[in-house]
């Protein structure tokens, strides 16, 4: 059975077509990097897959089940977690409360406690700041908190929107390293949206390059990295 299957997806922003017939497949356990410039439709893609935005056409399935038209609060109960753009934490709440929020709907409180412990082992910095408000954290720490909160719902599929946005190069390297570690350790399927094309492709299995709402190239990450035609146009060097 396949993992995430998106077929002929069309999404409109009012009169503008943001996504115009997008099709791709991500196998379970794969990391797919979605690359493209500002306004290409990357964020719209993730927002549609997580239920924040309505599609106008096409289909999307996760392990054989339709996910379009479902609410985000229900999709997270089916193992799909979206870490939205711009450090998806609630600044007014403490670090501990932001983490608790990730497990708020779960009945298995023992497992919530266990996974919270794992997250704090993965990101010890968060453990030192549990009672601080999230808006006192650095950009990198907030991103860790956003990913940590998502992990507490024990997701199978993570939709990750520009985790590198606004972070220093060294912190970006750490974040990508952590994402790579996580998916191998937890067997996660990840759709990673990035402008930081090379860093994303280096840890990805497959790459999907979109421009103006259409897919312009797909392939294994290695193929894309080694395709000179794509470099100047989309990969930024």
């Amino acid at each position, binding site marked *: 059975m396949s993992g995430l299957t998106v077929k002929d997806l069309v999404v409109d922003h009012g009169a503008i077509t943001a996504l115009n017939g997008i099709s791709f497949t991500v196998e379970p356990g794969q990391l797919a990097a979605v690359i493209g410039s500002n306004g290409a439709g990357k964020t719209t893609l993730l927002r549609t897959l997580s239920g924040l935005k309505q599609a106008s056409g096409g289909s999307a399935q996760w392990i054989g089940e339709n996910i379009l038209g479902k609410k985000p*609060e229900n999709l*997270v109960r089916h193992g799909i977690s979206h870490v*939205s753009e711009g450090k998806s934490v609630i600044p007014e709440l403490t670090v501990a409360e932001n983490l608790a929020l990730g497990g708020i*709907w*779960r009945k298995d409180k023992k497992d919530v406690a266990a996974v919270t412990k794992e997250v704090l082992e993965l990101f010890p910095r968060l453990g030192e700041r549990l009672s601080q408000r999230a808006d006192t954290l650095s950009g990198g720490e907030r991103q860790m908190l956003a990913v940590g909160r998502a992990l507490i*719902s024990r997701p199978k599929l993570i939709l990750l929107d520009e985790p590198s946005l606004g972070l220093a190069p060294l912190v970006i390297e750490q974040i990508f390293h952590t994402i790579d570690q996580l998916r191998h350790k937890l067997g996660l399927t990840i759709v990673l949206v990035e402008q930081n094309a090379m860093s994303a492709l280096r840890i990805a299995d497959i790459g999907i390059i979109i421009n103006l709402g259409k897919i312009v190239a797909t392939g294994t990450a290695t193929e894309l990295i080694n395709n000179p035609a794509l470099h100047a146009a989309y990969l930024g060097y």
Partner: protein
Amino acid sequence: MQQAINALLIGISNGFIYSLMALALVLVWRSTRVINFAQAGQAILSTYIAYEIVTRTDNFILAFIGGVIAGALVGAVVEILLMRTLFKHVSDGPVAALAPVIASLGLLGLIRSIIGMVWGNDQKPFFPPVSTNGFTFGSTTIPFSRMNLLIVLGAATVMIIFTLIFQKSNLGLALRAAAFQPEIARLAGVRVGAIRTIGWVFAGTAGAVAGILISPNDAITPYSLDSLLIFGFVAAVIGGLESLTGAVVGGLTLGIGLSFILTYIGTSLIFPATFVVLALVLLIRPQGLFGSKAARNA
């Protein structure tokens, strides 16, 4: 000195009532971004239901419980039937911000008319459960009565329960998350729609408690809580509109401030003084005492 203490005690008693009304307005504002003028109607309807129970059973505790439950239910009904429908039809633009406020004004009128049809527009005496005569110490009698004490204890109990729910429970965490960042709350799995209704239920409860506690000092009419709405709104704005702590502090500040003006200057200045306080707060600290600038800009 004695006069100042009296002013302070009465101010605290009134201030707690203003705080409850402010809490009701802030809870609705936080959960759905609506300034709910109908809150005065919801509260007076709950008070009439308490009045009906107390005249039939002569049991204030039963009336209080019945009135508060009615307040909670009315809050839920207004959110589910009126607000949800409204938000479904107008979700964008300036109309979306204005429509619910106008609708709440209309609802206020509607609730008052329904009360008028059921109970009449004339004054109904709401007999106090405990004495409204001031406590006597030796030969001096102070204006602060057993009823005032009941108001302070009742309001404080509600606030402590609210604080515990908001700070210590998962429901409170969901309510706060949905108020601050509804989208992120949804992505974390919070059913924001249901949580909004619960915000209105809590607001309805707070308003009902305010109405039922303040009315035994006086007679009730369909309009008798209108001025409380204004005091509650001013208190909420003083507190920053976003903050529950701010609502309580704003209510107490206003209550005590007005009580001193009443004692030392005169009754006629109550309303002008209320708005002078509001204007000063907005001029000096537009975000309120407990609000953040960012929240006000949002």
